[in-house]
């Protein structure tokens, strides 16, 4: 079982994702440089957070052009599990692997804080065993995390069970106050129609150990390990 952690110029949560996978969860992980055109031999792909190409044009815009993104597309089409975290989510949106777009936070400020998420579906490889309604405490850290899609797309996402996480208060109520960036319908994470590609703004890799203030993020990686185990079994 081996996970790829993609590295683009400007990725900066790559080491954190690697640490969470390898040293906390204990699954094999390897950095993959963005110029690599294949993901053969990997069982799952993590697109970590950061500021690829400085986020200078739009977050994720330039990274989507890297050779490795072609490989990610093929990997996803083959049903392989892909998680894009923060900038990774933005890259998946820009690459068209997930619908919608990100605009700047409605506060116009970067926000780094713990937030609460309400799980919406357990059908992704990363949320298996995290039933709908579960409340997770996970930090966000971004400047452009204000999820946008037109009304029709939003409705489709909801109907097809593609909304994986919403921002909520500690009790699980999806409120305006608990939305840190203005995202449409409090959306914090969505998956592809098939469910194997997950994009989320919050950072599970940052809260995989109790010492970090929460270990809820670890549940996503544990779910992945279980899912992969079932698939190979």
């Amino acid at each position: 079982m081996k996970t790829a952690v993609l590295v683009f110029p400007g990725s900066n949560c790559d080491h954190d994702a690697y640490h969470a996978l390898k040293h906390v969860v204990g699954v094999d992980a390897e950095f993959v440089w963005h110029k690599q055109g294949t993901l053969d031999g990997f069982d799952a792909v993590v697109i970590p957070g950061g500021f690829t190409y400085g986020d200078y044009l739009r977050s994720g815009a330039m990274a989507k052009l890297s050779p490795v993104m072609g490989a990610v597309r093929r990997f996803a089409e083959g049903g392989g599990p892909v998680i894009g975290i923060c900038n990774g989510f933005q890259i998946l949106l820009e690459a068209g692997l997930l619908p919608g777009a990100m605009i700047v936070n409605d506060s116009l400020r970067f926000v780094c804080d713990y937030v609460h998420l309400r799980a919406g579906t357990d059908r992704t490889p990363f949320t298996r065993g995290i039933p709908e309604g579960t409340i997770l405490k996970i930090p966000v850290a971004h400047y452009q995390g204000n999820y946008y899609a037109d009304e029709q797309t939003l409705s489709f996402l909801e109907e097809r069970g593609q909304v994986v996480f919403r921002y909520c208060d500690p009790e699980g109520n999806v409120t305006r106050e608990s939305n840190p960036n203005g995202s449409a319908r409090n959306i914090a994470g969505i998956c592809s129609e098939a469910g194997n590609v997950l994009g989320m703004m919050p950072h599970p890799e940052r809260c995989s150990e109790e010492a970090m203030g929460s270990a809820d993020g670890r549940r996503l990686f544990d779910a992945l390990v279980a899912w992969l185990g079932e698939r190979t079994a």
Partner: protein
Amino acid sequence: MKAKIYVTLKRGVLDPPGKAIRASLSHLGIDGVEDVRVGKFMEITLKEIGVDEARRRLDEACRRLLANTVIEEYRIEIGG
């Protein structure tokens, strides 16, 4: 040769900076502004490749990189 590209948000897409600017202007006592939409503007210097070819290449650049057509639209102006 020179070209300009204007990238603006589509109608209906929320524009937080535009909204904030409008509010700030009225705080500053600058009245009469009803709406502000913020976009990007690129000044491009090109090799002499002719207007048509330039437009073709910049159009491709916009579609593939410079604009996100989910939320933005673009306009190319060659010369000037």
